């Protein structure tokens, strides 16, 4: 059922190269889920999220000091090793400091034709943020036009918004099924869909999602009937970890990750006046990355709502080692979850995780959650 998505996720580079061959278009890599892809789709550019490979590497020590997160080092390693040699451009939207280093080292040591740093506002709670971001998106659009030599019309932008909105709507529908007693898709399968969402042409991804949603009702009940869990925290595309959790009778029904719900949760208003401002509003109002969640902690309310809607029994809180933004949120979020009666298990992620050790902890956590049913 999800073979297509899994294939995309596993063979992401082959896909992007084939796409380029087929369409003759440009491919740009991007760091961070705050890049307004609507503009790229408007310009017929394929955006692919830069991710790590979860393999130990020894090429980044010269470029990034070891106290920064393993994810940013893993991403940079892919660039230095030439895994993304097909990229025409590289983009970043400003969020945390860690990932920024992968970008700045990459463009210096593995130059690409076009690179762009979008100074995305961090004070998304300020009434000034939308106007400011709209100005930045306009400048970004102009830079893209200059690069491709082709004007991006309002109609193009409308098309870009439609492509993105449709894809977000479809994955939302998939997530709706995860509210069911025995969800037809596992956490692992959902993650394959969510990762590939940021790797392939959204039009193709939407087609595949249509198919998936069309066949989903025929899935027999009882497949994913483990303890309902939420997973939240830093960037996470660690499929073997999710598989391990589900192999010991946990079922991940909802997440708060930038690969996952934070990425697709809200849409751009299609009929709300100025298109660029509408895009800016969408990104300002989306579920926040902790690096932008101040002074009010909006994430707590959002996460508790998710936990309630998806009826979770426990939450696995993961953090990329050294991820400061999440380290600054985790104590408050864990406290809020615990106060709402949702127990938490904290795990620190690295490029590879010690699955065996984590398995023991996850099993113990699940036992603890199940005990409450027994007594």
């Amino acid at each position, binding site marked *: 059922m999800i073979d297509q998505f899994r294939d995309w996720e596993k063979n992401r580079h082959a896909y992007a190269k084939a796409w380029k061959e087929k369409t003759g278009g440009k491919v740009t890599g991007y760091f961070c889920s705050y890049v307004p892809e609507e503009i790229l789709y408007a310009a017929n550019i394929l955006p692919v999220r830069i991710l790590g490979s979860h393999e130990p590497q020894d090429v980044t*020590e*010269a*470029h*990034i*000091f070891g*106290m*920064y997160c393993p994810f940013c080092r893993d991403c940079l390693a892919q660039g230095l090793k030439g895994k993304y040699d097909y990229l025409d451009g590289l983009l970043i939207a*400003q969020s*945390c*400091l*860690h990932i*920024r*280093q992968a970008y*700045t*080292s990459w463009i*210096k040591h593995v130059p690409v034709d076009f690179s762009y*740093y979008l*100074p995305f*506002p*961090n*004070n998304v709670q*300020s*009434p*000034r*943020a939308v*106007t*400011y971001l709209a*100005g*930045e998106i306009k*400048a970004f659009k102009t830079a893209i036009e200059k690069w491709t030599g082709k004007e991006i019309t309002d109609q193009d932008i409308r098309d870009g918004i439609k492509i993105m909105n449709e894809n977000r709507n479809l994955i939302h529908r998939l997530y709706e099924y995860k509210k069911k007693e025995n969800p037809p898709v596992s956490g692992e399968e959902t993650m394959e869909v969510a990762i590939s969402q940021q790797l392939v042409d959204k039009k193709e991804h939407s087609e595949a999602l249509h198919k998936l949603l069309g066949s989903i009702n025929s899935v027999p009940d009882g497949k994913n009937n483990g303890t309902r869990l939420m997973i939240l925290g830093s960037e996470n595309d660690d499929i073997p970890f999710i598989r391990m959790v589900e192999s010991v009778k946990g079922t991940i029904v909802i997440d708060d990750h930038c690969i996952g719900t934070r990425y697709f949760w809200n849409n751009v208003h299609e009929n709300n006046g100025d298109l660029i401002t509408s895009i800016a509003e969408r990104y300002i109002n989306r579920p926040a990355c*902790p*690096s932008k969640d*101040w*002074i009010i*902690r909006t994430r707590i309310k959002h996460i508790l709502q998710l936990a309630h809607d998806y009826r979770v029994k426990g939450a696995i809180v993961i953090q990329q080692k*050294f991820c*400061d*933004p999440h*380290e*600054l*949120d*985790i*104590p*408050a979020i*864990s406290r809020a979850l615990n106060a709402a009666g949702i127990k938490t298990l904290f795990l620190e992620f690295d490029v590879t995780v010690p699955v065996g050790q984590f398995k023991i902890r996850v099993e113990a956590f699940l036992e603890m959650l199940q005990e409450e049913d027994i007594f």
Partner: protein
Amino acid sequence: MKIPNYKTAPLKCWNKAKEIRDDFYKNYAVAHEKGGLRWSGGAWSFGAIPAGLGDDVFPLTGEPYGASIAFNKQFSIRCMEATEKKGFARDLCSYMRNYWGSVILDEYIDGGKFPKPDFMWQDHICCSHAKWYQVASDLEGGIPTCCIDVAVGPYTEVNENRLNYITGQMHDGIEWLEKITGRKYNDDKLIEAVYNECRATSLWAEICTLNKAIPAPLDEKSMYSLYVLGTLEKHSKKVADFYEELLDEVKYRVENQIAAIKNERCRVMSDTQPPWGFLKVFRYLETFGAVSIGSLYTFGLIGMWEDKEDGSWGPRTTPQQKGIKIKDRDHALKVLADWNLSKPEWQHFYSPHLKSEMMLRIAKEWKLNGIMLHYNRGCEGLSLGIAENRLALIDAGFPVMTFEGNMGDEREFDEAKTSSRMDSFMETLGFSVINE
């Protein structure tokens, strides 16, 4: 090679610097006794803005406060442990953890209970800056907090939209200050504070420029005690006046070849905040006849710089020197935002390569033999891109030594290992300990 033997003398205005610093912590603590206000926020925040609330408004700046705690190792350890007990990670900013620890323990560095601020006034430069006071407010049971985002890209790329984003937040901030304090805002006081800040920070850059001289009139360890005043209250008349006085004294030292260290034969610079509990490593360096003339950190956190006509790097010309008369609030905020965005220590947040250029400039103009980079586990903001800086300096032919440590958490600094690295570094530069 003959070992030089320069005249040396202690700084005359040393005690005055100490006095200003002591007053700062005291004034904050006793502000309420005289009906005044207390605010807490970062050393980088736009302190000139709350100055418009009156002359009886006293700040406590978090970074120097965290550094002062680090200096007091016993207290620091207790602060760290208190913070860890609350569930915070050990690898977070160590200034922040010291500050939180002081709040949690309810102990002030000067003795007594931690004086609770009336409001928090911060700006967001790194991932931790806004969150620092978000957590501090949680710990204090809720304190009105305002934070201005300044992350609009490097100074060379500032445009109207970017500047407006910052000044817009500043205008909102002033309305917020009026609302939470119930005071009427005084634009004249704001304008005066902006002038003071420009004067103080340009003067500090001018003082650092004098360190191009051989022998260097100042060594970095002493500079820490002087530049810190700018991190406390860069917008105050007191600090600006002090830097005028210091400038005269340093000029005198240059003219009369009064050296910071008597055997100066090797000039280095450091980078990022030092491990505050172990400043003696600088004294160790001196046994080789090596002086650290400063760093981009000591020069460019408080100092404001520009390209001079002769191509050298020097103090930024102030609005008052240019004959600019600040007309009103909006004008003052624009000047303040523009001035701060040119801060050298802000540029590397967008690209380490911008920082490498400035470091190379210092290495050449201040005539350095080598560079010591502190890979500072305590500050993700200033260690950002440091490995790229290393590569660029080596590429340009400058010998580089790195040492790992932490500005505020002494558990992460290995003194013996650092000295042994210094030994190797000095050995490769061709210097050995001077035996007298």
